[in-house]
């Protein structure tokens, strides 16, 4: 029997969600399915979703982990709203995710896991696979555990445990067959992953192949689907990246472009720790990473490194930002380059550490005592984190200032294809370090045309100077309590940040649009998708997305005033809209949600439609 025996239907786009227990390896399966999809040249976007607990009680709703992937033959911008296919490895995974499905969606369930005990743990009184409650959906009951066990049966050295753990690979193999994706990339990944554990490798490969073979032979599934290579993407060399990797690569690129050493000091926190892990591996690029004793020390170390002439970076999430505020204030006063990366998560306090939010904007803007303005950059997509990190470095170095880079948990974990940039075309960043002046007094707070002060790093005779948190006089840098000087320095710090050159705000507008939708950061894909749907339905609309939040692009006011209605959409309680209203005194509308998830294209489409 060959795979050609079953018809293959071509689809434009598909959304698949893998869901199982935290211990079922769903993130791993999702990652491999992403790999095999990426090399086919589909456009894609992913959304991992997992509990904060490392191993919540097995089989419970709290322990459900999922990975959603949206892939298509045309450009897509979000991981999608409703899955076409849900792979449910146990009853809890089904229960936690079934509400996301639309009528007609397919459920592929690991029938073996639907035991009385597991059903009870998930809170099912009857088996949903049998009680008719899923009749709106197409249900495929597949005994994955049994079939995996059979596939590894008789394999020397493969333990029952290895066999059981490989059932996620069975699911992967089946889905690869279903969507016509060759498994070579997944197999080579397994080769590397289990190079030192032959039995585990054999078990996983056997399960993967068994899943594929099951698809070919089973009478349960009579159809396959394919999604053609995306045709509307720019030519070039691609890879998949998530926001964490893209941020890390952006920082390494900034180090190479500026000639400065990269020093990252961080304290473990979800989800920002991943950036520490990622950069800690880049020893070959000379990246120095320090796991500090606390968030405060991490910020202090980054700033201390900056005083020494390094590109000093610290990365954290919500609660860590609270703790770093004091050091960021010192960096504002010292006027040294420093990058503070805030991978935002749902707050306040511990909040929901594994859920996304955009609620740190006002804190980034104002969360320090005294008048302490600083530039804020945000990233719009996972791969755009690369550019955002470079932009943060460019501003920090050129203007001698701490910069806050706002990403979020969704960006950090979500993957998409990335057109790898030509390194030689990346902008050079000249740190313009101060040089020995031979004679005369060195003035550490003299200013250049950018209002930036000299960055004089230790080691240069004649430039010895002392700086600190106490107000200083311009240009000598000496301590000053003079009232006029404090006013001057307050104005100076403000003017420097306000004068930072940032790209103009771009608007994607229909000529007769009356509604402008504005977002910032990671809502980019959702808003564009919703805008596209509005247009497909014949509506006229305009969309703009901020990448620089302080200073705002110079044309912001002009754009806001050009539309009778402006809707500001964000994942918080209305922070950007507050800034824009106070800055431009305009009656802007707000759509603000705090549900720990990205905005959905469908809800934004609804919001836009209601205002057209």
């Amino acid at each position, binding site marked *: 029997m060959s795979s050609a025996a079953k018809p293959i239907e071509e689809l434009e786009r598909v959304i698949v969600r893998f869901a199982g227990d935290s211990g079922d390896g769903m993130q791993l399966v999702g990652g491999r399915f992403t790999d095999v999809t990426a090399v086919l040249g589909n456009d894609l976007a992913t959304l991992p979703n997992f509990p904060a607990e490392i191993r919540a009680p097995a089989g419970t709703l709290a322990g459900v982990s999922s990975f959603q992937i949206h892939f298509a033959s045309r450009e897509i911008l979000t991981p999608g709203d409703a899955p076409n296919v849900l792979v449910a490895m146990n009853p809890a995974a089904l229960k936690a995710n079934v509400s996301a499905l639309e009528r007609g969606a397919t459920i592929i369930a690991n029938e073996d896991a639907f035991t009385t005990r597991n059903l009870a743990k998930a809170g099912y009184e009857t088996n949903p696979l049998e009680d008719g409650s899923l009749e709106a959906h197409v249900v495929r009951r597949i005994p994955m555990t049994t079939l995996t066990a059979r596939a590894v049966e008789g394999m020397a050295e493969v333990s029952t445990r290895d066999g059981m753990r490989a059932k996620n690979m069975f699911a992967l193999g089946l889905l690869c067959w279903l969507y016509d994706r060759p498994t070579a990339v997944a197999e080579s990944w397994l080769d590397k992953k289990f190079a030192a554990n032959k039995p585990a490798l054999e078990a996983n490969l056997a399960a993967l192949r068994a899943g594929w073979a099951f698809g070919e032979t089973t009478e349960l599934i009579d159809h396959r689907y394919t999604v053609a290579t995306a045709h509307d993407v720019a030519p*070039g060399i691609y890879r998949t990246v998530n926001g964490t990797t893209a941020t890390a690569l952006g920082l390494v690129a900034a180090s190479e472009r500026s000639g400065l050493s990269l020093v990252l000091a961080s304290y473990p926190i979800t989800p920002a720790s991943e950036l520490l892990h990622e950069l800690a591996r880049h020893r070959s690029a000379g990246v120095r990473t320090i796991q500090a004793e606390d968030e405060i020390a991490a910020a202090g170390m980054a700033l201390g490194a900056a005083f020494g002439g390094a590109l000093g970076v610290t990365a954290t999430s919500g609660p860590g930002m609270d703790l770093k505020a004091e050091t960021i204030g010192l960096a504002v006063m010292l006027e040294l380059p420093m990058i503070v990366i805030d991978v935002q998560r749902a707050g306040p306090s511990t909040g929901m550490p594994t859920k996304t939010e955009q609620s740190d904007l006002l804190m980034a803007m104002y969360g320090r005592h005294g008048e302490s303005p600083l530039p804020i950059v945000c990233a719009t997509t996972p791969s755009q984190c690369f550019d955002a990190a470079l932009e943060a470095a460019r501003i920090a170095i050129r203007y001698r200032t701490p910069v806050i880079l706002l990403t979020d948990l969704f960006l950090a974990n979500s993957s998409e294809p990335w057109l790898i940039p030509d390194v030689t075309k990346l902008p050079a960043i000249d740190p313009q370090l101060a040089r020995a002046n031979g004679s005369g007094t060195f003035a550490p707070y003299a200013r250049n045309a950018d209002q930036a002060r000299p960055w004089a790093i230790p080691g240069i005779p004649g430039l*010895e100077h002392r700086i600190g948190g106490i107000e200083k006089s311009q240009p000598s840098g000496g301590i000053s309590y003079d009232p006029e000087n404090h006013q001057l320095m307050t104005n100076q710090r403000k003017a420097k940040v306000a004068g930072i050159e940032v790209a103009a705000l771009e608007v994607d507008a229909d000529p007769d649009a009356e509604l402008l939708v504005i977002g910032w950061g990671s809502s980019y894909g959702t808003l564009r998708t919703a805008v596209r749907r509005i247009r497909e339905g014949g509506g006229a609309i305009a969309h703009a997305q901020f990448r620089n939040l302080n200073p705002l692009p110079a044309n912001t006011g002009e754009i806001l005033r050009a539309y009778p209605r402006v809707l500001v959409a964000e994942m918080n309680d209305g922070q950007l809209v507050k800034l824009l209203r106070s800055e431009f005194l305009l009656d802007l509308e707000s759509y603000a949600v705090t549900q720990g998830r990205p905005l959905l294209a469908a809800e934004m489409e609804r919001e836009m439609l209601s205002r057209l």
Partner: protein
Amino acid sequence: MSASGTNGAAKTNGTAEPSGPRVLTKADFQSDAETRWCPGCGDYAVLAAVQGFLPEVGVPPERTVFVSGIGCAGRFSYYMNTYGVHGIHGRAPALASGLAAARPDLSVWVVSGDGDALSIGGNHLIHALRRDVPLKILLFNNRIYGLTKGQVSPTSERGKVTKSTPFGSPDEPFNPVALALGAGATFVARTIDRDKHHLPAMLRAAVAHPGAALIEIYQNCPVYNDGAFDALTEKDTRDDALVMLEHGQPIRFGADGKHGIVRRADGDLEVAEVADVGENALLVHDAHRTDPSLAFALSQIGELDGGATPIGIFRQSPRASDAAARTAELSAARASFTAADLAKLLHGSNTWSVGASGAGAER
């Protein structure tokens, strides 16, 4: 009023690169900022001692950095004609650790006080010591908060009456030497601001130590805690109140060294009369012991019956470390990291190319 006085700017040197080997003097380390400590403050003596000592180290001002925290001691960095950062309260060890990580070629000093280092910044201090970051840490201990005008500090004695403890401090103080030893410090010493010979000797030993070196300096605050250390410095009391620890020497004190420290059979230390036990029974100080427990016991001898306050080097036991080698490796890696390397890194291990036609192909 203008902002003269404490000037952060570099002093005008005006001289070209000297032709011969550079001879450093005390003046090379003196900034022209006007010192603004209270008259009679112990900080003046420490500043003079440090400025007077540094020329002999041979590290020029441009490769020396003083990082300080908040408090009276925090102003120290402004008075040194070196590079300097006056940081935030308690965070000097963190700033200095980052600087030392980025710039292993520099001589980095930390100046801190008892409130700065042991209260608000306690965490940074113990971790800098644990990591053995090559910092020279000067802990000015006056047992009081000076700059905030006289509150109890973590080294103030129990029962101390201050503005914040009008009925006496209920809390046991830290013993900074014991704390540092507990944190795994490889060099711990104690000295006194007014001792013009002992203080430079401690600085000399600290500079010779490859890792983190902490020197607790008893420092008099004439305004809020005057005379806190008089017993250790006044002629008529110091012999009985002070024990001078010297590596390789029997530990004895009192007039003509009539008292001594002996180690009992159970390992505890006690004070004995030399005339009773004989000189050979005295504990011989060994600062180089790897095991810090005896140094810890010595840090407590002020609490013994008939005991006295020890000064000197408690521990001087360099820890083998590959930190310098790892740092050198990273610096070399950074220096040889090219645009081509960056391109390779950006590509990672799985790429595919999209041609003008949009066809995907695995690479």
